[in-house]
């Protein structure tokens, strides 16, 4: 019996990439599914804040669900870090509507796949991409550009749209049967859902659109604010700085002091978890949010944050509220008048 052909499958856990896994498996390919962690996944952020869906469940990691359901090996790859940040802050092919460098990000991921191909003796890479589905990264010419730039020309198979694209090396070599691949294009998911039923996939997640914070307008505004206030952002900003952009209401007091106020218990816990030496503030005797201050606030700045924290708490209608500020072993008790309204809104990032 001939040796099995091995391939790397990029798996987001959405319907399209899950279908791609199933199609490749049915073609007799030994699949290694990879799921990239960038730190910008909205679902992961919801999970870590304790957010629950309409059924009261913590959202699942859909890539793991898909790999377990289809029955393929899955590898999680952490690409968050300095190299990714450099790409993110200066993308060669620019941003999409917000701060989403989709083309550069795809190239970055395909380069990792190429390295993994060599490491794991795989012959090609496949994805769930559908021609014309996304305005920036899934147009015909963009797909070709990404292939060339990542050094994988002819070695990226898109099983769902393969018959609308030039034959790839795996098809030319007979590793794959082109006739058993598909010709799906565009934004509609009707054909994918029909195919999922035909292939016996029991369930699939709702459409993914907007699963990355970089495509989110509010996140993008905070991202630009952070970058514009950070000297040599590419080498100084960390993964945690980007994580914090997704948590709580964000305010800027001056050039170097920002603070976040949690919107629920999950965000309060996340701020405490990510405090790492910053001041944490909580009202002492009345329920209310936690705030995390980054930077070196002076006394006046710390009192201003305390006033805002008090303004978001249950003591907002009291004349004075005691707010406790803690930073490691340091502890200060601040009695402040709660601040609300336009003056607070003016600080919002």
């Amino acid at each position, binding site marked *: 019996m001939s040796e099995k052909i091995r391939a790397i499958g990029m798996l987001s856990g959405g319907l399209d990439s899950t279908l791609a896994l199933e199609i490749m498996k049915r073609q007799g390919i030994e699949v290694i599914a990879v799921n990239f962690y960038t730190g910008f996944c909205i679902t992961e952020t919801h*999970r870590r804040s304790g957010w629950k869906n309409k059924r009261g469940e913590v959202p699942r990691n859909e890539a*793991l669900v898909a790999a*377990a359901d289809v029955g393929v090996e899955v590898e999680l*790859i952490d690409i968050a870090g300095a190299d990714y940040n450099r790409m993110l802050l200066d993308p060669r092919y620019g941003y999409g509507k917000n701060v989403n460098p989709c083309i550069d990000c795809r190239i970055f991921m395909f380069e990792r796949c190429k390295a993994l191909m060599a490491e794991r003796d795989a012959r090609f890479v496949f994805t769930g991409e559908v021609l014309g589905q996304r305005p920036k990264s899934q147009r015909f010419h963009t797909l070709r550009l990404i292939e060339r730039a990542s050094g994988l020309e002819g070695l990226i198979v898109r099983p769902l749209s393969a018959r609308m694209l030039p034959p790839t090396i795996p098809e030319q070599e007979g590793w794959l049967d082109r006739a058993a691949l598909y010709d799906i294009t565009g934004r509609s998911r009707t054909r994918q859902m029909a195919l999922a039923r035909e292939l016996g996939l029991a369930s699939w997640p709702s459409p993914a659109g907007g699963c990355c914070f970089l495509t989110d307008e509010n996140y993008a505004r905070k991202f630009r604010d952070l970058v514009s206030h950070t000297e040599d952002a590419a080498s100084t900003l960390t993964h945690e700085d980007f994580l914090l952009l997704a948590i709580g209401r964000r305010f800027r007091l001056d050039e170097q002091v920002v603070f976040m106020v949690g919107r629920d218990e999950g965000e309060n816990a996340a701020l405490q978890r990510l405090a790492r030496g910053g001041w944490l503030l909580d009202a002492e005797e009345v329920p209310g949010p936690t705030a995390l201050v980054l930077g070196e606030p002076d006394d006046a700045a710390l009192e201003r944050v305390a006033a805002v924290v008090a303004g978001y708490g249950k003591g907002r209608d009291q004349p004075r509220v005691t707010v406790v500020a803690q930073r490691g072993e340091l502890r200060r008790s601040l009695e402040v008048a709660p601040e609300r309204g336009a003056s607070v809104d003016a600080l919002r990032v």
Partner: protein
Amino acid sequence: MLLCARPTPPLPLAATRHKSLRTIAPPGDGSSTDRSARRSQVVHRVGARRGAKPEATLERIDCRGLYCPEPLIALQEAVARSAPGERVEVRADDPGFADDVQLWTRATGHTLEALDQEGGLSIARVRVAARDQEEP
């Protein structure tokens, strides 16, 4: 930049009958570089001596403070450096970890021997499957 170390209490050692036990550096400062370094740290490796049966070897990794999917990536890395039959124990406090580790073992064919949850802490013990096996 502005982020400093989050104080993390020392990991209480579970009672163990293994004699050889090595402790390596505690969690670091949480920077991107540090996350990778921390994940690759063996917190405790017990029973790893020449001639020992694989099942006698247990590697414990402390992933408290790391967000999903990082505890799972740490487990994946620990499994990659372990021999078939050896076990890896992960402690994680991310609420998604318990669910993730069940799905991951189902997909990869490694055995989830135990999954305990104490307060906000999940402790998963995984036995490493044989290499180059057929798809699970």
